[in-house]
């Protein structure tokens, strides 16, 4: 009783004083205060727990979660539709037309955590009913099926099908030689599908001095590269852009434990700076070589590199370098096999206005044995530039309480005079529903450059997704 009296008196007295001092202040009492607003009520009443006994409160975790799927499954269902906006006589005009159900489930035992993620896909463009989990064809795309264990406190082991990423580039990869799905990336699937799954064992050891990751892939996990089946490309032997009329069928290394890949990363932080060194031994991730009879194959490849990422002048600076050793063309004299190269990037990202972030990168690939290559070109084979320079620019704007995201990403090569513009608008109608629209524009003066060869694939798409 005396306490209440004291509170009331104080509320009145300070309210009056405050009111006199700053008459422009509206005497609003915020919701949830529990006490009725008096005329000078800017002074808060004490919340339960400070002035009055704490009230029993419902655990928010127990409250209604809305629609949930049985068996602890989570995921989404989505539909995507897109079309080419340029003529391509060798492809369907629909670039994407699919319904996708992703289901995921985690299981835990005292010694390990298990995870399963799979997509059931009805793809009206490819209409491929033959299941190929390795290449991601057919009605099922198994994204993850792995177990994580910690045999020692300093060691994590993750085995099975998993998504793997490292390196500091933004949509530019130097030391990340884990499989990519460029088809998904260019036709307007969600960004997560740029990463194709690996069937691998990842061993991570941690110490104060440095951390080491080793990823062993017992059989090559190649990129889901552009082979003409869905996206058109420049075919050197035919001398033009081709699609379904010249689908690449490569010799794919398939022997377990000999056609394998090993990748390692040694990394540590120094203050806010992240330092890493990388190594890789395996294959080029796409058939970058051709046999004498013209049959494409995957040449052997090793890479060593390093990266650095940290804060600078209110932004984030990134840099990465990698040296590619093309073993099947060690001296660079075989024009049918991709030359070794040095890759380098430097980038900077900064928030330039509220909810608007800009990021730029300079990226270059420099051929290791350019003169050897030039001297050994076959007749009629065009000489490449010694270096391919690329500038990227990303702009991301969040609007309407971060429910609308507008983003644009442009790759542009000044020396190859080509590029690729990606843009997207994603709107979250609610926590569950999301709509997305976007496009992939490919441009170039020539048909045989990296992005220029994709110019018949320019497309627009629309998608709707329900998460659960």
């Amino acid at each position: 009783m005396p306490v209440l009296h004291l509170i009331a008196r104080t509320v009145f007295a300070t309210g009056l004083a405050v009111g006199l001092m700053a008459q422009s202040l509206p005497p609003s009492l915020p919701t949830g205060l529990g006490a009725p607003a008096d005329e000078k009520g800017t002074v808060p009443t004490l919340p339960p727990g400070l002035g009055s006994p704490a009230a029993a409160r419902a655990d928010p975790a127990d409250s209604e979660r809305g629609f949930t799927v049985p068996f602890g499954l989570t995921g989404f269902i989505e539909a995507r539709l897109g079309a080419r906006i340029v003529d391509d006589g060798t492809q369907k005009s629909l670039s994407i037309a699919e319904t996708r159900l992703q289901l995921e489930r985690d299981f835990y035992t005292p010694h390990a955590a298990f995870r399963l993620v799979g997509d059931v896909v009805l793809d009206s463009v490819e209409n491929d009913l033959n299941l190929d989990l390795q290449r991601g064809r057919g009605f099922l795309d198994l994204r993850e099926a792995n177990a994580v264990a910690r045999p020692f406190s300093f060691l994590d082991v993750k085995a099975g099908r998993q998504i793997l990423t490292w390196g500091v580039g933004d949509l530019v990869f130097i030391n990340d030689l884990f499989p990519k799905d460029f088809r998904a990336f260019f036709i307007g699937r969600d960004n997560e599908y740029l990463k194709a799954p690996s069937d691998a064992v990842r061993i991570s050891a941690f110490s104060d001095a440095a951390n080491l990751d080793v990823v062993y892939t017992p059989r090559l996990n190649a990129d889901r590269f552009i082979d003409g089946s869905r996206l058109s490309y420049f075919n050197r032997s035919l001398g033009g852009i081709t699609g379904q009329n010249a689908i690449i069928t490569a010799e794919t290394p398939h022997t377990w434990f000999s056609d394998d890949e090993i990748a390692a990363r040694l990394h540590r932080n120094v203050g806010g700076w992240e330092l890493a060194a990388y190594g890789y031994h395996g294959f080029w991730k796409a058939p970058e070589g051709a046999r004498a009879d013209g049959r494409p194959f995957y040449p052997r490849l090793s890479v060593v590199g390093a990266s650095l990422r940290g804060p600078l002048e209110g932004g984030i600076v990134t840099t990465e370098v990698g040296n590619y050793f093309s073993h099947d063309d060690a001296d660079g004299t075989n024009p049918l096999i991709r030359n070794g190269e040095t890759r380098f990037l430097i980038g900077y990202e900064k928030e330039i206005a509220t909810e608007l972030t800009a990021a730029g990168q300079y990226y270059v690939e420099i051929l290791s044995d350019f003169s050897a290559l030039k001297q050994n070109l076959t007749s009629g084979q065009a000489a490449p530039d010694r270096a391919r320079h690329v500038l990227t620019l990303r702009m991301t704007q969040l609007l309407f309480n971060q429910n609308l995201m507008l983003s644009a990403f442009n790759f542009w090569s000044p020396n190859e005079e080509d590029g690729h513009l990606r843009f997207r608008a994603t709107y979250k109608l609610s926590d569950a529903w999301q709509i997305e629209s976007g496009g992939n524009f490919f441009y170039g003066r020539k048909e045989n450059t990296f992005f220029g060869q994709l110019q018949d694939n320019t497309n627009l798409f629309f998608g709707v997704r329900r998460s659960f």
Partner: protein
Amino acid sequence: MTRPFLIFPLVVLLSIALVPKLAEAAPDVQEIVDRASAAAYYQGRDGRAAVRMSILDSQGRERTRDFIIMRSDLDDVDNGEQRFYVFFDRPADVNRTAFLVWKNPDADDDRWLYLPALDLVKRIAPSDERTSFVGSHFFYEDVSGRGPREDNHVLEEETDIYYIVRSTPKESGTAEFTSYRNWIHKATFIPVKTEYYDEAGETYRTYTANAVEVIDGYPTVVQSSMEDRRIGGETKMSYSKVKYDLDLPEEIFTERYLRTPPRRLLR
């Protein structure tokens, strides 16, 4: 045997002489603000809570965010460096997304976001601390704390219950408010209400602590809300499963645990 008898009257005398003085003398305003910041953001050596955010837009539509937040104070120093680990559970499209912050009071925070579908550890450019945290009405700064030395503070008033402190940014133009006023509970130093004023002196943004519980000996705000008239609507936050002094290992706040969530601590 004799010494306690000698000391006892001395203590009594000193107490009589000192106690009323201590009670009367208001602490220095900077000390009040420092203690309020410590009470709001630095209780215990470390802590963990399950948080539910309910975001109501101006038309009353609700969005929710469920996440676990873990926090550790480096060397247990109040208002010093901190590490935060945030693990999202809901909504479904951000499930398993993890967010790591190394808070540096005197420099930009270091922030990382882990996107599980891509296994991508993304470094996030330092942003204006006064932008929305996950689309709510709370700003990053409201979640991790505004530096007590970023503003000039004036103790405008003192009631039996509150210190009422007005704070004005030392560098004008660094925040969207002209000043703000904090009602700091004298007994616990918990900020019970904060009003943000625009150039006309109008309140456009109000923080309210709606419920406090003493957990592991620390008074803790377990329900709060932020209303923002410029944005429209409000966000309510409730904390559950709060625990302090868990001796969280420092390595929780590293890339290792972004990629492999510390399952035991997230339950």
